């Protein structure tokens, strides 16, 4: 029984309470620190000493400072936060994409509608130069809106690349910080205590990295945490971290991909493996949403421009002398991009190239394609349509290629989806090309006709019913439908009986008969000769005649203007050529735009919903973590008082021990 025992108990108690107060103070100080886990001092009784009269306790020991953390909750929170960041990135970028397709009068659809409606005024008075001027300025507006929208999409693409670079720079910095922390923590592994604050910092950094790209972590026995991304690619292992980089996509350098630098060599990380995090959201936006929007916009631009120019070429303008109309619009042409890894020749250029020609702009699809050599048959190629994965085989056939749909073996002829493909050079078996028939169409759209007299309002041929006709047949419509029409040839149609049988004669300008024959007219079906289609109302009687001759007075004819007006109802976007040669309807220009804007709207809506849901899930997970490891100021205040009292009590014990020692000394000195 010595006073020193009491003293040491008092000292121990004071120390323990002081340590607790210090830790409580640390908690209070770090109440707002993100990622901080509440720390508590673990106290244990110092045990008892057997003095023969019983076990007498020796006081209290501070075992360690423990932080309140739950690995499982942390992991859940990381995952949820990563998903929320991905959805948020995609949602906010999609909202920007939406501004490219406004509904109403400022949109592309309204401009196309105005342009086509302006031809109604021209049809009312074909010689009116102010109606022509209005058409030209409407055409400029159409080209302008398409090219502005295309330019906005290109800028959004640049924005994505720039956001990716920023994110990757942040990630690289954080990864190297994690590596540093790993080495610091490992160095401290020897002592039995746990470096709580370092662990908190590392967890927080990993969560931040997780917000950029989803990570999985594996703790190793030396205390370091291995961080892995993209399904097993190591980012941080031990004290070493790898660097990510943003590199151009080998299939198309305007897009970006993420690569990881491994021993100085950059390996591309497949986008499908980078799930979760802002980077993944940006990549999905770049590779799916932007591509789809650009292709849909380009498909509309190409189809409208193609048909308008075609009808313009069929008509007669007001030039002197009047001639076939010249194109009104020009759009960006189809593009075939070689993969950056394709075989190169000695000079460094590519050994092979692919070129595309548009044969029918109304059949172009809103999709990119991939062209690769057919591994099974040398000399053949496989073309894959990226929106739906449908594959076509391309086999040499004379000077061109024959396309066959692989799923059912259907023969598509020498062109597919409105385009023809030419291969120059020989492809290496590992080569591939990305084909963009409509991707670059919109951004380069321009009006190329400036002279109002250049609008072809007149049809090249006119149909006149015979003066002596006794039947009720009148001309409903006459339209040139093919470039094979020769306006200098006059067609005389003579009905031989009352049931629609007729004989026809085609005479050239010098009066020589070039061809003749017989046919039968049925109500509702056009008479198709010399590249034109003639529709009749009423019923012709025997002996009635109709002649189709070159238009004598183009300045007062409005036949071609009527054909342009007819484009409003023509389903010219995305027609489908069936196997039997018939064309399945696409959409009208108005419906196509309504589809695009609804499509983008649905994407935005669903992205917003995903974002709301994943943010809510993330907040819930964060709440669970905060419950476990968060600091509650009221609780800390209470504990502070508690340990303060304890400290005061312990100090009192020391005081009493000191008083006893004084008493003993006094006793001993007598």
């Amino acid at each position: 029984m010595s006073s020193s025992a009491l003293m040491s108990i008092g000292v121990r108690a004071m120390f323990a309470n002081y340590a607790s107060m210090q830790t409580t103070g640390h908690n209070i100080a770090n109440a707002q620190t993100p990622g901080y886990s509440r720390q508590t001092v673990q106290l244990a009784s110092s045990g008892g000493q057997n003095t023969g009269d019983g076990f007498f306790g020796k006081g209290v020991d501070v075992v360690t400072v423990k932080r309140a953390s739950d690995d499982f909750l942390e992991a859940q929170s990381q995952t949820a936060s990563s998903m929320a960041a991905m959805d948020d990135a995609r949602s906010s970028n999609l909202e920007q994409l939406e501004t490219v397709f406004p509904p109403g009068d400022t949109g592309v659809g309204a401009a196309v509608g105005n342009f086509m409606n302006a031809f109604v005024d021209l049809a009312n008075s074909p010689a009116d130069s102010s109606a022509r001027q209005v058409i030209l300025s409407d055409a400029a507006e159409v080209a302008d809106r398409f090219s502005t929208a295309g330019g906005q999409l290109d800028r959004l693409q640049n924005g994505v690349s720039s956001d990716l670079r920023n994110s990757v720079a942040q990630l690289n910095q954080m990864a190297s910080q994690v590596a540093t922390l790993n080495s610091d923590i490992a160095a401290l592994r020897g002592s039995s205590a746990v470096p709580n604050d370092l662990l908190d910092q590392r967890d927080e950094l990993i969560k931040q990295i997780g917000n950029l790209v989803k990570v999985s972590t594996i703790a190793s026995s030396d205390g370091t945490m291995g961080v892995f991304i993209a399904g097993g690619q190591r980012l941080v292992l031990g004290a070493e971290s790898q660097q990510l980089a943003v590199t151009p996509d080998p299939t198309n350098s305007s897009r970006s991909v993420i690569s990881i630098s491994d021993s100085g060599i950059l390996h591309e990380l497949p986008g499908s493996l980078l799930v979760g995090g802002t980077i993944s959201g940006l990549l999905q936006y770049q590779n799916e949403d932007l591509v789809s929007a650009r292709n849909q916009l380009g498909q509309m631009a190409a189809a409208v421009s193609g048909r308008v120019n075609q009808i313009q070429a069929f008509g007669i303008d007001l030039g002197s002398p009047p001639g076939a109309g010249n194109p009104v619009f020009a759009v960006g042409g189809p593009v075939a991009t070689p993969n950056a890894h394709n075989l190169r020749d000695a000079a460094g250029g590519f050994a092979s190239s692919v070129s595309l020609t548009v044969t029918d702009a109304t059949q172009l699809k809103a999709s990119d394609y991939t062209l690769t050599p057919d591994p099974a048959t040398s000399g053949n190629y496989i073309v894959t349509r990226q929106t739906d994965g449908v594959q076509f085989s391309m086999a040499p056939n004379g000077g061109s290629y024959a396309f066959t749909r692989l799923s059912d073996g259907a023969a598509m002829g020498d062109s597919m989806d409105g385009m023809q493909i030419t291969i120059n050079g020989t492809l290496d078996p590992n080569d591939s090309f990305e084909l963009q028939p409509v991707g670059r169409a919109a951004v380069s759209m321009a009006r190329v006709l400036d002279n109002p007299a250049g609008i072809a309002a007149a049809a090249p041929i006119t149909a006149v019913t015979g003066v002596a006709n006794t039947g009720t047949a009148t001309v409903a419509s006459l339209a040139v439908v093919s470039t094979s029409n020769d306006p200098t040839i006059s067609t005389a149609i003579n009905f031989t009986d009352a049931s629609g049988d007729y004989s026809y004669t085609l005479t050239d300008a010098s009066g020589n008969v070039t061809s003749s024959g017989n046919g039968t007219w049925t109500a509702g079906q056009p008479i198709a000769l010399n590249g034109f289609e003639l529709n009749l109302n009423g019923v012709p009687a025997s002996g009635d005649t109709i002649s189709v001759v070159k238009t004598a007075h183009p300045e007062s004819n409005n036949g071609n203007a009527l054909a342009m007006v007819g484009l409003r109802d023509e389903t010219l976007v995305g027609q489908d050529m069936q196997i039997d040669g018939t064309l399945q309807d696409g959409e009208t220009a108005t419906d196509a735009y309504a589809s695009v804007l609804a499509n983008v709207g649905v994407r935005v809506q669903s992205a917003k919903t995903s974002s709301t849901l994943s943010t809510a899930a993330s907040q819930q997970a964060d709440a669970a973590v905060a419950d476990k490891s968060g600091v509650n100021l009221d609780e800390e205040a209470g504990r502070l008082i508690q340990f303060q009292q304890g400290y005061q009590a312990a100090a009192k014990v020391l005081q009493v021990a000191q008083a006893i020692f004084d008493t003993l000394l006094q006793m001993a000195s007598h």
Partner: protein
Amino acid sequence: MTVDRISTSFAYDSALNNLMSRQDNLTQTQEQMTSGKRVVKASDDPAAAARAERARALEDRTTASQKAVDASNNAMTLTESALGDASELLQQARELMVSAGDASYSDDERASKATAIKAIRDQLLSVANRPDGQGGYVFSGQGSGGAPFVDQPGGVAYQGVGGSINVATDEPLPLTLDGGNVWLSANTGNGVFVTNNVNSGNAWIDSGRVTSPDLITNSSYDIQFSTAGGDTTYSVLKDGNTVSSGNPFTSGQEISVDGMSFTISGAPADGDDFQTTPSTKSLSVFDALDSAVAQLSKPDQGGSRVQQAVEDSLRNIDQCNSQISSARSFAGTTLQRLDGVKGRLDATELSAQTSRSSAEDLDMVKALSSFNQQQTGYQAALQSYATIQKLSLFNYLNA
């Protein structure tokens, strides 16, 4: 003991998040109320945005069609009034012709009638060439490089292309009429056959009529007179072949041949020949008046020649008038049709506007009520935040 701990910083964060999202909703509602639109961008309601887009396109289209209908309306109004003028002029010519048949007139008096008819003919030419006020011509058909009717030796010719130009509406509405059909294609004769005085100066033949439509053939007939033996007889030839001969002739008596019947009056001389041929649609208004003028201007005509001239001219003028009236009624019915089309277009426009409005416009009552709701919720959140943040144990501890 497990405690449901609330981390202080997390509590603040989540309260602030709540405030932010309420404020965001409130701002959105306010924006909707200011613009009056529920659907400002496509993501607000994609299906409604697509509907509104299609409705807007339809609205623009009906506006364009209404302009086309107006153009056709103007053209047909002009046409109808031109044809009205033409009818009146022909009526005047008819009256002049009737009065010129007065047997007591001298050559000079007839010549002065001829001059008046010539003036009417010239007026009719300018009606036929009436401009449409937009640089074109009303009767230009499918186009003429200038005035559609040209006066040249041999008669008035039509420079335009037959048919008519239509405006760009879903049903064909005309901008022009076929001038050749209106002015140059009246029926000759009485519509079925034409009677012609070949060489007789003492007798005249009327226009004839159809007594039996089934018996009408497409042949040409000659009535040849001979006065052999003191009696006037006539023979009937069909396409040059004699059908009957020696028929006794009485002036003013009906002669019937193959369903046709006509009257020859006067005293035909030997060798006088009258012909009938099938009608064609080739009578020109101008030719009709020109030949009337020519006949009346000739001096020393004698009674029967004048009668013949008057008979032929009245017949021709009536046919021309009938052709012009028929064209005029076509213009009139087209104007009626245009009224109907206009009405339908107005209804379509209204329906498109209604559709657009219901798709994208804001229901103000609903919006106001939800605005109030959100406002109250936001106020409550703000108040509760202000109250709770004051509560802390530290306030109650003194050092």
